[in-house]
């Protein structure tokens, strides 16, 4: 199904100011951010490239460069600023904030309320949505999140959802989510050597563990064993690498770019992932990894 000219226009008008603030972004990431295919983004860019102000000489056209899948805008003409938000966008964000508040501890509640007031100031009507907070166990959630962020293992006593018995398990927490009034934790379970989902309210007790015994690798592919002391330089444009792979990240230093240290991990997965980010991620150490990535990239290049 082809989309309407109107939807495309809306996206194009949003693309230009977004590009202006995300110079050098990859088409792959744009596609992800805008929720369309890379081909669609390509087509959009070609179209935008031909638009401009009356006169339509090169001086009056929207000026942008795209090279090797990365896009830069040098002259947006009159599209410097994003369009104001629609009422649906504002109300959706307000509900999102209410939802965030409902699962977070009270310490951040005031901040969220203040933010809502800021957004509401551009709203000329009342918000039709209301989020009612039910019970929450934010203390436990926050401890688990901290473990996810730091990549810590947890030793838990769990009341099984499968066998009606309590077991002691060593787990590496990976992902936590709320669904149907329950909070769930996806984790690698060292005890049963597999990925498991736990209900947070059935975790009877837990303590942080060094994780030395954890042998988790985020892939089922063949692997060459873990390499330690991996350091990456991740550009702002590639920041979702960090956001999506918290489980393997030891530390992040923010600056013009992100300096990222990884836990020892399976490099096969990492190599393949890093190549996909193009210039967005540089391997600062170890050298062998950087070399390997170069070699792989060259091999890919040699196909053409």
């Amino acid at each position, binding site marked *: 199904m082809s989309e309407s*000219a109107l939807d495309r226009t809306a996206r194009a008008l*949003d693309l230009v100011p977004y590009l202006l*603030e995300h110079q050098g972004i990859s088409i792959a990431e744009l596609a992800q951010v805008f929720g369309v295919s890379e081909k669609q983004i390509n087509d959009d860019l070609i179209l935008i490239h*031909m*638009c401009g102000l009356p006169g339509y000489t090169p001086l009056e056209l929207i000026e942008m460069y795209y090279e090797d899948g990365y896009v830069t805008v040098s002259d947006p003409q009159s*599209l410097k600023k994003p369009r104001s938000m629609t009422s649906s966008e504002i109300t959706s964000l307000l509900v999102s904030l209410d939802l965030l508040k409902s699962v977070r501890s009270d310490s951040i509640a005031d901040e969220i309320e203040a933010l809502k007031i800021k957004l509401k100031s551009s709203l000329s009507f009342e918000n039709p949505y209301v989020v009612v907070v039910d019970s929450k166990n934010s203390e436990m959630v926050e401890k688990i999140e901290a473990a996810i962020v730091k990549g810590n293992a947890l030793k838990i006593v769990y009341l099984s959802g499968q066998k009606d018995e309590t077991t002691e398990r060593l787990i590496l927490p990976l992902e936590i989510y709320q669904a149907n009034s329950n909070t769930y934790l996806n984790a690698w379970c060292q005890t049963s050597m597999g990925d498991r989902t736990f209900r947070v309210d059935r975790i009877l007790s837990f303590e942080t563990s060094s994780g030395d015994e954890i042998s988790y690798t985020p892939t089922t592919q063949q692997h060459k064993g873990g390499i330690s002391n991996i350091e990456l330089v991740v550009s702002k444009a590639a920041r979702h690498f960090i956001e999506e792979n918290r489980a393997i990240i030891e530390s992040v230093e923010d600056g013009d770019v992100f300096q990222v240290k990884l836990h020892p991990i399976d490099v096969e997965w990492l190599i393949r992932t890093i190549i996909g980010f193009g210039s967005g991620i540089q391997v600062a150490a170890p050298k062998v990894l950087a070399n390997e990535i170069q070699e792989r990239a060259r091999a890919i290049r040699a196909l053409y």
Partner: protein
Amino acid sequence: MSDRKTERLINLTLALLATKRYLKKSEILSNVAGYEGTQEAKERMFERDKDDLRSLGIEIEVGDLDIFFEDEPGYRIPQKSYELNVPNLSGRELALLSIASSFWNDSVLGPNAQSGIRKLQSLGIPATLEFEFRMKYRFDNPSELLEQIAKAILQKSRIKFAYDSSSLKLRQLEPYRIVFWNSYWYLIGMDVDRKAIRLFKLSRFLGAIETSKRKNEFEIPSDFTVADHLPKSDVEVIHSSKIEIRRETGALLRQRGKRLSQGSEYDTYVINYENERIFLRELIWHGVNVRILEPVNLKEELLAIVDGVLA
């Protein structure tokens, strides 16, 4: 075809946005790229384009030109209304919004929140990564109806819908608020036929909603609050049950309950529950290790579920 129209709409937006003074229609038709054909065709095209841009929420101001320009109207898009302006939004707040907007893996709110956040991310506010929040929200109960109901609430238009209930099927409602509660979407409003404020679960709506063409058909009472119309989560809704639990089993149930007596094979517990459906699942999950003694209706419900499996 779609390409040409898109291009023309973008060019028109750019031109109307760039101008400080009003642009005459004749100027637009002859200068903005994409207007082709007879004069009449061009004008029709321009009228449609204006409507299209307005439907995107873009304000096109119509102004009188200098009297020397005869009485041709002029057009422009005021920058102030076009451009997003959220004063003093910090990087920390933007980060909070990004986290919040990523909650929606489904429902119409997802795309809307995403496009909203994209615009905010185009403001040039340096983002931060300071939150350790990892918790996501997963919606198992998305609703396609949200947008339409929200619109009806804003316009104060009545809606008609079929509702899955034992009594009245067809409802006419003055919609007040959409409520997310206990992981479900509800609608609270004035039931026109029953003349009372009622709560409806969106997952029980049958088929499409019909929104009245008229606007401002009702007022939301000034003393209306959502909390007054949700089932109370204290005494009223908490039910009590008497359950037998086989020895050495049902640790989770035991934890929540109060033991009444101990037997050789079963222990008897009093267990309170709020949500019958969830409680029943929990009980059934325990298989032959638990047995409901009271109340009778709970037992019947459980049997109905089990029979449903067998049927």
